[in-house]
């Protein structure tokens, strides 16, 4: 909590003990402050009070006036002069609570021995504390058909439900997806879905986690384990830059489930379904387990570690080399790559941006993002939030939840600059500034912001020239804060670690001599390369033109580029050392393949979009896989350079003692927007983004999760649809000189010049299919 805020404290007496709590605190939570646990089911600190389960009844008097009957302590805020008697000191409250518990149990099945919740069940626990040892109920229990799928990943066991409405309130109040609701009445009341609209919420897994009984279960965990057989490790989510605190539960070396952790300053108690359920890639059957070296016949064969390390070192040493590190590396691994490039390879040719990118972006990151700190708390206090090149619900779901919370709580003003009105932006009740793809910069200049405002810039902002220049100008002129929110978990850490051509670790500009000297001294090397390194695209081009001969690549998918042909050509051509967890386009073309540890097998940290460290320990300890960092150290040693980064702890210590740059920031060269292209009758400008649930490699092997992905469609405006005679569901062929995709049409609120399709969903992999992602002119034909 921010200590600068002045809080009115109210003192109340609970069970004879005085406690002072902020005004507005509910009695049940004031009691918690004293360590007095009042049993509860429907109460949840992040949901609006409902007072439905009646489990938390206590006796209350205010200034000598006693309530005639016990009150639900989860619905009543403290008041001056209040005296509360809980079950500990009031026989009335105690009997009331025991009575309610008995009622809850009469219709609850005795299937604890086979229920997933057994062992970690609030009903089970509180039945022990507040229930009777033996039942007085001799009647007939209410029964329902056993579990029904309310989505492909959530199952509902209505018999077990205690109707606390946590799940329905979460979906409505937190996620903004009121797709489940309570139906029917009396003891037959039940959670249900609208038959034509299953529970397709990106946040549905949270309902499973907050269900106080085993009524909601996840399809992928159901019947897999008993909670007491699991070993839990605090962890961080590797899927996006939101930075969720997580818990990974492992049984006998195998991850069985992941849960949202509790961090009030970041993800509160929530996460998204991708973070919760997409972890099977770690245990996929095709995991790389042994080093591979390409033999003289050109075939990758298993090799010993020393052999492979030697082969890698020799290849890198013999060539001019560059480094490509994907956006999924941990902060420590990225630092290893950064240091490796400078010390072992003597180059600044390193780029973590294995996606569409621009030089304007690189300068923007150096001038405005590195070492900056805009936080979730700033969103809580913002007077206006602008979204540009960013779809929070799809690209950083916890940022979406935070925005949604503030929109619901205090009608936070949100402005979205985009070509298509997305579901998420609609839920945020945002002002939708509709622009043609590529023309976002102009819309920025007309915004009136204050120093309390925040501009949330997505990584896609770099896909339109001049947008980042306009963002910087708007922030300069208004004092508004900038927050750059990349999609991948490792990008911010990689930026801070200097895994980019224009920056050294800690935001030190490569071209700044004192900054170079600073790092060189720290690393104990005579000097560092002084010219700004190449970007990913330039590195591939340099390989193809012959000026670079070797690449060391970690976690990069060459198909994430809009010129994947050039990337693949470069991979064929160069001597490639690939650090990977599973076979990929890179490892298939590599000369040396080195298996690395997946996220659950190693420790480390990610820096989320705020720049906040999200550290985690290895959840699976008996993995033989090494971290990227350890392998880089071994290669460097073989090459005669000293990385001295044998362990993650060593790297973390080194990063910490290095600190951030206190000299001048790099400046940014303004870039002008490009003019809008002139379109003929059936031409459109392409607009796309990646959906949360799509063909991303980290979602591999999780079919239940994939079942809730949004439908793949091509979105066009009503005007253009009318002109082309297109109705919802008609097939549209979108093509470029590179190729085409055919998708079902959806007529929606989108700029007339634009056509939208998901960037990497089933049937719509635009970078591969069209060789374009955003801003390209495409031809659209109705089939």
């Amino acid at each position, binding site marked *: 909590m921010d200590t600068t805020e002045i809080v009115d404290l109210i003192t109340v007496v609970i069970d004879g003990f005085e406690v002072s709590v902020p005004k507005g605190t509910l009695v049940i939570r004031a009691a918690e402050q004293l360590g007095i646990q009042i049993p509860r089911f429907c109460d949840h600190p992040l949901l609006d009070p409902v007072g439905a389960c009646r489990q938390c009844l206590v006796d209350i008097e205010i200034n000598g006036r006693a309530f005639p009957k016990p009150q639900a302590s989860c619905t009543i805020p403290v008041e001056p002069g209040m005296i509360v008697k809980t079950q500990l000191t009031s026989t009335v409250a105690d009997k009331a609570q025991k009575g309610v518990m008995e009622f809850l149990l009469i219709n609850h099945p005795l299937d604890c021995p086979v229920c997933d919740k057994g062992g970690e069940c609030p009903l089970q626990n509180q039945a022990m504390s507040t229930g009777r040892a033996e039942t007085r109920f001799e*009647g007939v229990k209410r029964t329902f058909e056993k579990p029904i799928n309310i989505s492909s990943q959530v199952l509902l066991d209505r018999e077990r439900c205690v109707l606390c409405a946590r799940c329905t309130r979460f979906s409505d109040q937190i996620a903004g997806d009121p797709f489940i609701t309570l139906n029917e009445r009396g003891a037959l009341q039940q959670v249900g879905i609208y038959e034509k609209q299953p529970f397709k919420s990106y946040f549905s897994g949270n309902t499973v986690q907050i269900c106080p009984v085993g009524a909601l279960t996840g399809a992928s965990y159901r019947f897999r384990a008993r909670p007491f057989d699991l070993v839990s490790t605090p962890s961080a989510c590797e899927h996006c830059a939101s930075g969720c605190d997580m818990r990974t539960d492992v049984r006998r070396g195998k991850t069985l489930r992941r849960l949202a952790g509790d961090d009030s300053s970041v993800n509160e108690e929530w996460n998204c379904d991708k973070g919760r359920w997409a972890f099977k890639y770690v245990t996929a059957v095709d995991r790389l387990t042994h080093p591979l070296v390409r033999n003289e016949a050109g075939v990758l064969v298993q090799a010993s570690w020393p052999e492979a390390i030697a082969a890698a070192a020799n290849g890198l040493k013999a060539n001019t080399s560059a480094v490509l590190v994907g956006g999924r590396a941990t902060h420590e691994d990225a630092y290893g790559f950064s240091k490796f490039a400078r010390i072992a390879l003597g180059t600044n040719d390193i780029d973590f941006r294995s996606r569409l990118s621009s030089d304007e972006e690189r300068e923007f990151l150096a001038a405005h993002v590195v070492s900056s700190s805009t936080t979730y708390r700033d969103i809580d206090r913002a007077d206006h939030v602008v979204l540009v090149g960013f779809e929070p619900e799809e690209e950083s779901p916890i940022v979406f939840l935070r925005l949604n919370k503030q929109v619901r709580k205090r009608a936070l003003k949100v402005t979205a600059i985009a070509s298509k009105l997305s579901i998420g932006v609609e839920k945020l009740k945002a002002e939708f500034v509709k622009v043609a793809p590529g023309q976002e910069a102009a819309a920025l200049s007309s915004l009136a912001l204050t120093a309390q405002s925040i501009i949330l810039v997505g990584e896609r902002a770099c896909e339109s020239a001049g947008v980042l220049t306009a963002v910087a100008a708007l922030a300069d002129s208004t004092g508004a804060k900038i927050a750059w929110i990349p999609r991948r978990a490792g990008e911010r850490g990689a930026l801070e670690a200097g895994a980019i051509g224009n920056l050294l670790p800690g935001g030190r500009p490569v071209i700044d001599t004192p900054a170079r000297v600073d790092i060189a001294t720290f690393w104990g090397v005579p000097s560092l390369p002084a010219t700004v390194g190449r970007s990913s695209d330039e590195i591939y081009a340099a390989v193809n033109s012959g000026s670079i001969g070797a690449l060391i690549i970690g976690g990069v998918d060459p198909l994430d580029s809009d010129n994947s042909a050039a990337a693949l050509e470069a991979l064929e051509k160069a001597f490639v050392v690939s650090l990977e967890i599973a076979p990929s386009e890179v490892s298939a073309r590599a000369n040396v393949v080195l298996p690395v540890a997946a996220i659950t097998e190693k420790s480390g940290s990610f820096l989320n979009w705020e720049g906040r460290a999200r550290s985690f320990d290895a959840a699976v300890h008996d993995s033989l896989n090494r971290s990227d960092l350890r392998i880089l150290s071994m290669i460097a040693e073989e090459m005669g350079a000293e990385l001295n980064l044998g362990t993650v702890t060593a790297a973390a210590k080194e990063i910490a003692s290095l600190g951030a740059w206190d000299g001048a920031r790099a400046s940014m060269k303004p870039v002008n927007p490009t003019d809008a292209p002139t379109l003929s009758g059936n031409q459109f400008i392409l607009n796309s983004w990646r959906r949360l649930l799509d063909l991303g490699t980290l979602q591999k092997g999780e079919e239940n999760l994939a079942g809730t992905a949004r439908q793949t469609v091509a979105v066009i405006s009503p005007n253009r649809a009318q002109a082309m005679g297109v109705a919802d569901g008609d097939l549209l062929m979108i093509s470029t000189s590179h190729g085409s995709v055919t998708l079902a049409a959806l007529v929606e609120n989108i700029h007339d010049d634009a056509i939208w399709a998901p960037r990497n969903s089933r049937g719509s992999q635009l970078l591969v299919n069209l060789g374009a992602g955003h801003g390209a002119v495409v031809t659209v034909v109705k089939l």
Partner: protein
Amino acid sequence: MTSLTPVLSAHWDEKDSFTIEAYTRHGGYTASKKALAMDPDAVIQLVKDSGLRGRGGAGFPTGMKWGFIPQGDNKDHYLVVNADESEPGTCKDMPLLMANPHVLVEGCIIAAHAIRAKHAFIYIRGEVTHIVRRLNQAIEDAYKAGHLGNGVDLVLHVGAGAYICGEETALLDSLEGFRGQPRLRPPFPAIAGLYARPTVVNNVESISAVPAIINNGAEWYQSMGTEKSKGATLYSLSGHVNHPGQFEAPLGITLRQILEISGGIRTGHSLKFWTPGGSSTPIFTDEHLDTPLDYEGVAAAGSMLGTKALQIFDETTCVVRAVLRWTEFYKHESCGKCTPCREGTWWLVQILRDLEAGKGTEEDLAKLLDLCDNILGRSFCALGDGATSPITSSIKYFRDEYIAHITNKGCPFDPIASTLFVGVGA
């Protein structure tokens, strides 16, 4: 001896009593004219002075309720009339609306003016199609005559027939298009009611009483009734009586007097037990024949005036069977929101079924009372409380009869004997 004081029911026996012509013939719509010329605060004061109290059961002073609406807040205010009459035994609003719908329409105009509302809603239960039609016609006629539409609009909303929607906040949820379940209070409807705007929710009979008060004055109304329960009201007599029906009399009349006026208990039979205000009010027996039927009198005797639904049961009735029927109703109508009512009624029914069938034990009786204790005052709204009333009060007065079911291993009564068709075609 107290006699009937027909005001609302004065002209029910006229063939065309429900028409706007008949209503106007007897001075209808003069009160609204008079009230609209008054300052809204003066109307509220007049209703306060009259001592009119809510006729839906709780007896909250109507004028005071209107006075809770914040004035000059630049918000829309709403008047909502609760016509979701569904308490077992209660049958006053439906006959009233059948025979004289215009008195409610005129009451709405006056009340809306007083609380500065431009919109009034009548929420009526869905099953009463004929009354819905009659009320719709009355509203249409009032619009044609210019009584409605000039400052006040009146909307008739037909509910789907859930008992819970008679609870005022559940009613508001249902009116807004949601599933009817009671809302957490505060905020109270006077602050955030329909569509989160200040709202007054009144019973049909309360609003219908207003035109006469405007026309005849607070003193006239005060002249009827008892010290704290002013005015006249509709008593609904049903069950084992010779002449069931509506009897409009000053508050404080006794059952003995009403029975004398109406023609008494079913001939040849004697009073066994009765409800003063519907099934949710603890039952009375013949020892309560002289209890004054006003808010205080009934409360002092351990029950509630409620809706003044006098359900009369003679000695042929098995109290266990009657209580079981009522409990089945509560189980069927429990909205499911809170645990004690939802699960409690589910359980109570099962125990009572066993008891009625002679399969119970004396421990079951103790358990029944203990469960009632765990429901009463523990549930979210008064529905749960109401469900326990018939059980606890019947065990209080007729414990022996429950025991007889246990020792007899069955019901000692002939269920046919209590029917109206007993002896027919035997």
